[in-house]
């Protein structure tokens, strides 16, 4: 483990990194995280601010290796085979200043048979011009289960350029479930790119939620290749855009083996001058595979809207409630 501290403990001491840590804890809370959880000894924690690793707390079965780069951190996160990690592993990434660049090169190795959840919060509360890139390689070993929940908070200025990219390999009988949410504060520019290969009997479920306003730009690209027999894939994309925001969703699902089943489900709600674009791609290379797709792009469903109006809500209140529910 290459890191300055093993615990994010700041009470009673004032080392150089303490102020940064306090700011990160505030940012973590703004992104929806619970700072108290970062203090618990039984919770594995990795906190990275800019190119600094502020805390890396390991627990039995979970190990971190981290080294600083010029503009970020290279991190390796290992969960031992057959490990059953009871409490979610907390990851906190962020940039506190108004300007900056953070590049995270992350390598996740989930051993065969392991079960683990990650809660990742990425916060850029003061961003006016911040670039954040996550280039992840995720390997979920045979029979393992990884749930990865990532929430972002980008502050009110819309000055963040975020690129979460991941190459994921889901081995036989393994399960990979991920949820990405960017629904508070401004988006800025978001470019999600996930490519997932699923082996025999494996499962991949991806949920992406974003709410763009102002001049925000949202691009979501998800590719799921169901390569093994009876592999399962599901993508759920929920995007709302208003003002002059633009969303582009490209989802691709391949059924490449007998018994593979995939489904893509996309809803994009458009308000004002905003624009939404959806391009699903379905590829089936085996006559016993099946991939389905459904999409609803455009205005709020009229029946949903009228149902809420009939309770006395005005149109803005009703639309906001529907959107907030959708991306919740």
């Amino acid at each position, binding site marked *: 483990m290459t890191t300055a501290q093993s615990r994010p403990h700041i009470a009673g001491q004032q080392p150089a990194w303490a102020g940064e840590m306090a700011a990160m804890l505030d940012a973590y809370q703004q992104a929806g995280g619970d700072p108290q959880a970062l203090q618990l000894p039984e919770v594995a924690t990795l906190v990275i601010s800019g190119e600094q690793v502020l805390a890396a707390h390991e627990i039995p079965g979970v190990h971190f290796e981290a080294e600083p780069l010029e503009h970020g951190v290279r991190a390796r996160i290992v969960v031992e085979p057959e490990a059953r990690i009871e409490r979610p592993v907390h990851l906190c990434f962020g940039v506190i200043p108004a300007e900056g660049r953070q590049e995270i090169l992350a390598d996740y190795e989930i051993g065969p048979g392991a079960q683990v959840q990650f809660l990742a919060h990425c916060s850029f509360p003061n961003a006016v011009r911040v670039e954040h890139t996550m280039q992840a390689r995720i390997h979920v070993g045979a029979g393992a289960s990884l749930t990865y929940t990532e929430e972002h908070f980008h502050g009110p200025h819309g000055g963040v350029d975020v690129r979460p990219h991941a190459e994921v390999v889901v081995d036989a009988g393994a399960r990979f479930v991920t949820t990405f949410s960017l629904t508070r504060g401004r988006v800025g520019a978001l470019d999600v790119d996930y490519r997932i290969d699923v082996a025999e009997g494996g499962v991949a479920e991806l949920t992406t939620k974003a709410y763009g306003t102002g001049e925000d730009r949202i691009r979501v690209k998800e590719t799921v290749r169901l390569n093994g027999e009876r592999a399962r894939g599901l993508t759920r994309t929920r995007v709302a855009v208003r003002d002059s925001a633009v969303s582009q969703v490209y989802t691709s699902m391949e059924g490449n083996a007998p018994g593979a089943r995939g489904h893509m489900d996309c809803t994009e709600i458009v308000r004002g001058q905003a624009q939404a674009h959806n391009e699903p791609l379905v590829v089936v290379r085996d006559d016993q595979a099946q991939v389905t797709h459904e999409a609803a792009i455009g205005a709020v*469903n009229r029946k949903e809207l009228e149902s809420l*109006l009939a*309770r*006395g809500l005005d*149109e803005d209140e009703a639309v906001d409630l529907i959107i907030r*529910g959708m991306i*919740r």
Partner: protein
Amino acid sequence: MKAPLLQIEALTLRRDGRPILNQVNLSVYSGQVHALLGLNGSGKSSLAYTIMGCDGYIPDSGRVLFDGRDLAGLSITERARLGITLAWQEPARFEGIPVGRYVGLGMPQPDREQTVAALEAVALPAKIYGSRAADQTLSGGERKRVELAAVYAMRPRLAILDEPDSGIDVLSLVEIEKLIRRMAGDGSAVLLITHREELLATADAASLICAGQILFSGDPQEARQYYSARCRPHLKSLGAQPWDATSPEAQAALDSNGSLRSPVSGQTPEG
């Protein structure tokens, strides 16, 4: 005699060139359950949407008066804020909106106790259902009951219930009928839309609608007899969806005035 809370006068509606409602007259009073009975495609739901002011349901002629006020030009929200609401026959599903929140939407102030009471009134335990989403994970019957709870929690002056009994199991139906009576007992006017004669037992008054016309208004028992005698014989043609007054079956069922041919005598169709 007190004035009706809802008064519909000579209401006519066409959609996509088709006649949907034709010279409809109807009066509903506060504290009264008024059943509107008709076959599928007879115009019941269209009348409900027109009263509520839904998109595409602007009358071609006639008036809808609520407490003496003409509702023409009022939005759904404005009508709801006057105290009118509608329980949809097939309620919308909402991702991410908890049942408890949905039920409380029409309350002036969110009230947990009132929400719990409303859910229990439709036999849905708040502990189990309050935090569940009002989405596709609910069965059709559960979602219907949530819709009725939301209407009840709102304490509306006029509740339009569009086929509240459809998709509801027999045991829950008893609770639904009790709830309808309770709403009237609390002073609400209830327009109860149904195609099941049995539900007329819940009503204080009833009207029959066929092919967009009110054929009879009066005592629920008489309405039931009228329905059996005059509507059932035309079931085949009247059951067509959507109603097509120009079809050969409909032409055979209608007289020269556009009313249903009557196998019985002594009844004067209204409207």
